[in-house]
């Protein structure tokens, strides 16, 4: 069941964050987005990060992705044995698939940037498109797809890049509840197949407990790691997992840890509005 504190390590971590901090200058002085994050993620581990909005969890993910730099400390992915394999691929909340490319060209984008030949990269792309169930939509443009289909394309694009670490920034946040449930099951299935190392940022406790091996709870702004929970629910999981008592106990525990932080964040927001 839930055990607070870092788990014992036997292998070298895949992701190391030590005192990762992000501050940026504004007209009213320095603003701290991420105060100090310490986190280690093992190879093949699925870690979910939850926290109140504005706690800097997305910023932390962007630092890991190399899209942003830490102003102090570090947050990095430990390179694997194959130097050609990309370190990471991000699944963005706003999908961020290119509207001017077809589904096929979008999914083939990563290999194309690495100089993989057309035939080869399209074969890779087709395989992943089939795995997310979009075979018939290869030649469609994103504008012709629903939100759920767009996010499937985004996930397929990230997996076709074959990264060492998959970084997901609230990927299902913009979807309706039913589409979200379907995609959660698909993510579980894909993860069983690939066993990638995943860092998954979400604001949904239910989602974090359903998907993750570990749930990291962050404090309200400025963000640091408050506590973490090991999720030892048996795999493979699916939506029936959510009706087990163990699942209920875990979500309850995570919520108990998060509640005070959400209240703190709301109080900060109110302060912001007043000033």
């Amino acid at each position, binding site marked *: 069941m839930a055990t607070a504190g870092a788990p014992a390590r036997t292998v070298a971590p895949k992701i190391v964050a030590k005192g990762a901090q992000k501050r940026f200058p504004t007209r009213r002085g320095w603003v701290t987005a991420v105060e100090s994050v310490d986190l280690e993620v093992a190879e093949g581990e699925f870690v979910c990060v939850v926290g109140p909005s504005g706690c800097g969890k997305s910023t932390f993910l962007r630092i890991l*992705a190399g899209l942003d730099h830490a102003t102090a400390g570090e947050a990095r992915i430990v390179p694997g044995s194959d130097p050609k394999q990309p370190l990471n691929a991000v699944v963005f909340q706003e999908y*961020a698939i290119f*509207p*001017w*490319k077809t589904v096929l060209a979008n999914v083939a*984008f990563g290999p194309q*940037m690495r100089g993989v030949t057309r035939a080869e990269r399209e074969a890779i792309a087709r395989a992943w498109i089939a795995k997310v169930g979009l075979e018939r939509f290869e030649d469609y443009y994103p504008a012709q797809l629903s939100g759920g289909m767009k996010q499937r394309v985004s996930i397929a694009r990230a997996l076709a890049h074959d990264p060492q670490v998959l970084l997901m920034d609230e990927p299902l946040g913009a979807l309706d509840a039913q589409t979200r449930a379907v995609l959660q099951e698909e993510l579980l299935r894909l993860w069983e197949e690939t066993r990638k190392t995943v860092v998954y940022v979400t604001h949904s406790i239910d989602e974090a407990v359903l998907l993750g091996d570990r749930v990291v709870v962050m404090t309200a702004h400025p963000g640091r790691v408050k506590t973490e929970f090991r999720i030892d629910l048996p795999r493979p999981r699916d939506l029936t997992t959510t009706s087990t008592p163990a699942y209920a106990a875990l979500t309850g525990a995570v919520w108990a840890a998060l509640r005070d932080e959400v209240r703190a964040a709301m109080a900060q927001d109110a302060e912001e509005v007043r000033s």
Partner: protein
Amino acid sequence: MNRARPTSAWAVPAAVLAATLAAGFAFDLWTQAWWALLGVAFVCVVLTAEAVEGRLAVRHLGAYQRALALGFPIALLAVWEALATTGVLNPRWFPPPTQIAAALWDLIVSYDRFNRTSLIGRPWLVPERLATEGWAGVRALVDEAHLTATLGRVLGGFAIGAAPGVLVGMAMGLNRTVRHMLDATMSAIYVLPKIAIFPILMLVFPDPFGEGPKIAVVAISAFFLVAISTMAGVQGIDPVYLQAGRNFGANRWQMFRHVILPGALPIVFNGLRLALGTALIVIVAVEFVRADRGVGFLIFYYWQVLVTPKMYAGLFVVMALGVGLTALLQWLERRAMPWRKG
């Protein structure tokens, strides 16, 4: 929509319309209150058309709406025709459309011996000239045509101005230093009416009355519009696409080719469309002032010699040119951005 309206729904406004028009002619109201008559007539036409639409089957609605779009300008021309032939409009300044059409036909088929020009270059003479004078003869035919003169200046100037416009706009959009250096200057020059720098251009070119300054003034007009909108297009790209490009390992060239260029393209084409319209305005104005061929010259010449039907025919040609070139650009736009039409 209520589909069971009585006949009176369209009969009443139609009757009012007929009565208005009749009264207009009977009491000679047109000269004093033409605006009131036209207003009443327009409202009656709209009411009648709406009432008719209400009685139509749904499957006929599309055809009916197209008929309205086409029918309105035809009706307008018919009214013009009636007013001009009855003398309500002075036919000297507003010749009836049939006369304008005849003048247009005359311009197309005939050769102006005085100016040594024709409208479209008498293409039916091509085989004959080719036999007697070779390609030089065909070239002379192309050179005598108003249409090819204007078209050449517009297309030439547009191409010469738009291509560097896209490049400079891209540079301004991508590089902050370039943007800070050029933005204020470009915006200032952009608002300057380009026709005002035509005299300078005439001094710059070795032949002030040749094609050089005319093409240059079109090119300059196109350049600033295209550069400014390209810059806006590049800056308007959603940063999340740039992040995605970077995250998937795109290098500088790949970033440009796969993210920035397609991302900016919609706004670039917006700029191109505006630039094309501006190019037409500028070239007609230049041809008014300083040209012995071109559609602008044609309009101005027939104004000077008071042959108004041919002047209107010239206006019609400019209109057709604008519509044709815009259609061409839209075709290009659809080819360049297949993702825009779902």
